[in-house]
């Protein structure tokens, strides 16, 4: 009987592992169930020189040894158990030449188990298309391994791989990473507690404990060792991953060259156009214009329907319910407040539809790459683009997305400037004010309103990068970082994924904002319906006395009475108190109240105004029409005119009106200093810009 060695084929999913298995075994594999799991492993035999046979075991695909699913755990269990009859004499790691960086994470982990590890770089036939060239001898030296560059599609490199497997004893077992560098103190104590055990194996067992409960503890008898909490272990796992990617980046920087100008194929041609230093930006600009135009053109009909439906609902409730405070609260407070925000569902859904299509198609990654060039000039890296783009949905996940920026200075700057990007909460404010103050005409087929909205998005993005530039100059922290992004293939967006994104994001907007607006509407209504003193309690008598000489209809008198009561209600008194501060910006006390309420969340602004303008009103007018009819008591002109509207739009473009974002910034920076800097700077900037603009335009 000839000698036989165990060869484990391991790799990320979709790296062509099974093709390599078939090429080695000549399709003689058998399929058997792995004990205790539903995952299949394939086994086969490969004949090597001098009668040596390789028992090839094709293991389930896994991204790393930090297994999070049971099928991934199959690989970890085999590699940690030397007594397993399938324990490999040599591990063959299959990678895809187009995704080498990501695939090498698993390679470095297995290499550190000190098993002879061979690196197979598959799909070599794609190198020319992608403009990739590899320095194999240098990569072998840096990674302490033997490399087989193969193409299962063109059947090249398989014999070389068999030679390497045959000579597996010559493959170095030197690790890639000094495990103790992850946390020197912790690993020192681990080494002292278990002097005869391999440090990385111990670490893997402990970290698997964190992932899967008590698995494998007995194997290495470490129950006596006082291990860290699960959250601390997870943090160390993240640290390990970062250290590994730092190592991989340094290796690929010298061993791999990607020259897109030499790339061929449809994807490469598209990439060359979409990431072109001139055309790339032009195309992105045209796409943005199309999106904003479509948002306006397509959403008008459903928006008008929702607006009208809520106005009718208010009117109907007043007619069918017994009159009284609770009915008024419902018809004049809650329904208009909610209607004020639900009206924006169509536009928000369309915006997320477009963003989702761009993400799904693979275009968004090209935008990130494109923006990296701009970002670097302003003290940010390409990694900051992801939070800035995700900030268009909500600043909170965007601030949290900065966690993948290793450099503290870049991370801090990104956190501080992210709230400038136009989040979905600003959208209702922009949409209602634009509809009131920007004319409906068109310029070369593009509506002024769509152009205004796009301009506001650009102002948000522009202020973020200008602020980043200033902060980069002000903050004296050393920095040096690299940005590597994996470009996904272009694909037709999956309808299901797009639909899920649109539904989830719209639902989040409605539920998130809806609950706050509902609560604030109730409070505002009560404050607007309650008052102290003669002016409120005897409002009807006082107004009728005042208008006795005027020839007014009963309806006009009723409106005057409602207005007088509101002005002397609790909210009116509070609003009047702050009016001197906001009057220079062109706002009245009602807008002042809405601004104060929207410190909780920006979208509350519209709901607040909708509630305030509905108190005491019996007509069936929509929110937009009520806002249109408002007259500035000081100047006598419509309250929402061009000057005050632009001033209000710019105030919201710059102001830090989100308490939740401040709380997250505090948590991420571990200090109240930075959220306070953000709050004071952004509010002051918003006030000054709004003041200048109003005084200039009025």
């Amino acid at each position, binding site marked *: 009987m000839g000698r036989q060695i165990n060869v484990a084929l391991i790799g990320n999913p979709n790296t062509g592992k099974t093709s390599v298995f078939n090429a080695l075994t000549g399709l003689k594999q058998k399929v058997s169930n792995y004990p205790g799991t539903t995952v299949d492993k394939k086994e086969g035999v490969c004949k090597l020189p001098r009668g040596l046979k390789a028992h090839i075991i094709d293991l389930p695909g896994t991204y790393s040894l930090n297994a999070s699913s049971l099928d991934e755990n199959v690989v970890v269990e085999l590699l940690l158990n030397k007594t397993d009859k399938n324990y490999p004499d040599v591990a063959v790691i299959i990678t895809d030449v187009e995704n080498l960086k990501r695939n090498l994470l698993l390679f470095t982990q297995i290499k550190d188990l000190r098993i002879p590890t061979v690196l197979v770089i598959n799909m070599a036939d794609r190198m020319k298309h992608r403009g990739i060239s590899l320095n194999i001898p240098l990569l072998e030296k840096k990674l302490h391994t033997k490399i087989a560059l193969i193409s299962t599609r063109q059947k090249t490199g398989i014999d070389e791989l068999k030679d390497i497997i045959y000579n597996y004893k010559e493959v170095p077992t030197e690790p890639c990473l000094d495990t103790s560098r992850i946390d020197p103190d912790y690993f020192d104590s681990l080494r002292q507690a278990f002097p005869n055990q391999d440090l990385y194996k111990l670490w893997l067992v402990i970290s698997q404990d964190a992932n899967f409960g008590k698995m494998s503890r007995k194997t290495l008898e470490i129950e006596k060792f006082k291990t860290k909490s699960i959250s601390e272990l997870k943090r160390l796992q993240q640290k390990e991953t970062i250290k590994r990617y730092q190592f991989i980046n340094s290796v690929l920087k010298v061993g791999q060259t990607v020259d897109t100008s030499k790339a061929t194929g449809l994807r490469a041609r598209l990439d060359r156009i979409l990431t072109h230093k001139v055309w790339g930006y032009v195309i992105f600009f045209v796409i943005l214009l199309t999106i904003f135009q479509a948002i306006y053109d397509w959403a008008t009909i459903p928006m008008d329907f929702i607006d009208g439906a809520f106005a009718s609902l208010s009117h109907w409730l007043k007619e069918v319910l017994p009159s009284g405070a*609770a009915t008024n609260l419902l018809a004049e407070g809650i329904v208009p407040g909610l209607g004020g925000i639900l009206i924006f569902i169509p536009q928000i859904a369309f915006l997320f539809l477009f963003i989702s299509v761009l993400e799904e198609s693979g275009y968004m990654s090209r935008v990130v790459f494109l923006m990296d060039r701009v970002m670097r000039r302003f003290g940010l890296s390409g990694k900051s683009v992801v939070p800035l783009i995700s900030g268009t949905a909500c600043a*909170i*996940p965007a601030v949290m997305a900065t966690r993948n920026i290793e450099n503290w200075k870049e991370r801090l700057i990104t956190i501080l400037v992210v709230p400038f990007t136009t989040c979905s909460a600003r959208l209702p404010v922009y949409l209602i004010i634009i509809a009131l103050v920007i004319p409906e005409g068109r310029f070369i087929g593009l509506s002024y309103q769509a152009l205004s909205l796009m301009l506001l998005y650009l102002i948000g993005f522009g202020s973020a990068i200008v602020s980043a530039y200033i902060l980069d100059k002000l903050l004296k922290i050393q920095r040096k970082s690299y940005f590597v992004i994996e470009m996904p293939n272009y694909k037709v967006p999956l309808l299901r994924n797009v639909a899920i994104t649109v539904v989830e994001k719209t639902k*989040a907007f409605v539920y998130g904002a809806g609950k*706050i607006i509902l609560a604030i509407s109730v409070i505002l209504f009560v404050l607007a319906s309650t008052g102290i003193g003669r002016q409120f309690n005897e409002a009807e008598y006082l107004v009728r006395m005042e208008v006795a000489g005027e020839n007014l209809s009963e309806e006009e008198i009723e409106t005057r009475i409602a207005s007088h009561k509101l002005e002397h209600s609790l909210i009116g008194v509070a609003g009047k108190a702050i009016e001197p501060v906001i009057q220079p910006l062109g706002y009245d006390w009602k807008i002042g109240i809405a601004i104060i309420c929207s410190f*909780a969340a920006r979208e509350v602004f519209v709901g607040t105004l909708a509630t305030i303008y509905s108190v005491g009103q019996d007509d069936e007018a929509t929110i937009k029409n009520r806002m249109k009819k408002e007259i500035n008591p000081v100047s006598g002109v419509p309250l929402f005119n061009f000057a005050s509207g632009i001033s209000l739009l710019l105030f919201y473009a710059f102001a830090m009106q989100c*308490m939740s974002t401040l*709380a997250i910034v505090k948590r991420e920076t571990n200090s109240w200093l930075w959220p306070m800097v953000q709050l004071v700077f952004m509010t002051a900037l918003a006030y000054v810009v709004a003041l200048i603009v109003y005084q200039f335009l009025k």
Partner: protein
Amino acid sequence: MFNEIVQASLVIIAMLIAALFLIRKYVLLPKSKKASKDCGHDDCGC
């Protein structure tokens, strides 16, 4: 009279619930709650 009392009571209850909700969201919870990674699921805070 009965209608007025019921309606006033409903308004007071709604007012208390609303106030408690806002206090819980903006005063009590930010100290203890960890925000979700994902906006829209659980309470991301926005």
